[in-house]
């Protein structure tokens, strides 16, 4: 009796195993039965999407370049040292000695510039087509927050190679923030982490650039895209 039940169990296991393989993939089959992935995927893939001219693609291009920034940025993080004497040397090492380091760094550089440029074009396109009007006004605000976040990425990332130009540019714009009435001096100390721009500032900018800003950007992007999906793309005038 005992052997029979073990036999049945084994057969059951075998049957389940075959079913797993039979239903395309080891994981997909059982997952699909529970979550109906296939149905959702089909619905998403078959969803009709209106034809959009190349002018309407710059938001998407900016998003793609953001993904490139994440990919190249993570590789750069393996080599970069965010402290005062080492930052410049690590960039030197990365660009000269590390295999394909120059390619990764240059791609990060151009993709960042391209992202800001694509965002400018995107904002102009939305403005010219009047796509900012109700009910899309909230998305314009969210988009502006994303724009501000992108500028913050540029400002913080610009200092990281610790070059002469970047240093003095940072002195200039942080000085400007110090001029804000009431909260200026406090903000200045918060950003610089002291009286002047030093290794402390560099570490702060690094933390903002690789941890705080990406998370905020992803959250706001999700919000931005959800609204686009809900309201659809504006019919041209």
């Amino acid at each position, binding site marked *: 009796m005992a052997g029979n039940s073990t036999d049945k169990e084994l057969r059951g296991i075998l049957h389940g195993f075959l079913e797993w393989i039979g239903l395309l993939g080891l994981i997909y089959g059982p997952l699909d039965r529970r979550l109906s992935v296939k149905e959702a995927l089909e619905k*998403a*893939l*078959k969803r*009709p*999407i*209106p*034809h959009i001219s190349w002018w309407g693609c710059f938001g*998407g*291009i900016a998003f*793609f370049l953001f993904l*490139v920034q994440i990919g190249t940025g993570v590789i750069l993080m393996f080599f970069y040292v965010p402290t005062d004497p080492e930052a*410049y040397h690590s*960039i*030197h090492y990365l*660009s000269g000695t590390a295999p394909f380091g*120059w*390619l990764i*760094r*240059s*791609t990060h*550089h151009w*993709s960042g*510039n*391209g992202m800001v440029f694509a965002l400018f074009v995107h*904002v102009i396109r939305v*403005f*010219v087509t*009047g796509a*900012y*009007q*109700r*009910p*899309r*006004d909230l998305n*314009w*605000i969210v988009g*502006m927050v994303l724009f*501000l976040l992108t500028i913050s990425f*540029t400002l913080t990332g*610009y200092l990281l*190679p610790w*070059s*002469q*130009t*970047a*240093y*003095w*540019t940072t*002195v*200039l*714009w942080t000085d*400007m923030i110090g*001029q*804000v009435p009431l909260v200026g001096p406090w903000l200045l100390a918060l950003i610089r982490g002291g009286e*002047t721009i*030093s290794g402390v500032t560099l570490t702060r900018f690094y933390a903002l650039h690789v941890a705080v800003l990406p998370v905020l950007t992803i959250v706001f992007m999700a919000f931005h895209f959800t609204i686009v999906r809900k309201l*659809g*793309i*504006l*019919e041209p005038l």
Partner: protein
Amino acid sequence: MRLWKRHRVPVIREKKGGHPFYPHHLIRNTMAVLGAIAVLAALAGLFPAPIEQRADTLSPLPPDTAAVPMWLMRPVWLMNRVLNAPTITLLVFGGAFVFVLLIPFLDRDSEDSPLRHLFVAIIFLLWMFFIFITTWLLPVQVFLP
């Protein structure tokens, strides 16, 4: 439009129809992504990111030719250079951002009007000014004290 005017209900003007995402748009998107990667690789190969001089934190402010920032920061840099008043520069650029942020609330009328054309023309000229400053800065710089 009439509905919006009578009931103040926003009209959702949405572009309808079109082809399904798969395979039409997927092919287009893949083409665009591959094109973008090719452009990025070409730019990175032909014009690699520069390695500049190391920051000298102890030296006094360097001459302008030694510290012209990247294109994005040039308008702010130039304005501050000409006016030498960080507060005014901050106010102008902060004000411009707040203005752009409030555009949906300043322009709520969904009908075309001459005023709107003027509005768009002014914004467009401002944009042109911005692009002019950022791309033609180096010749302008010659005339600076």
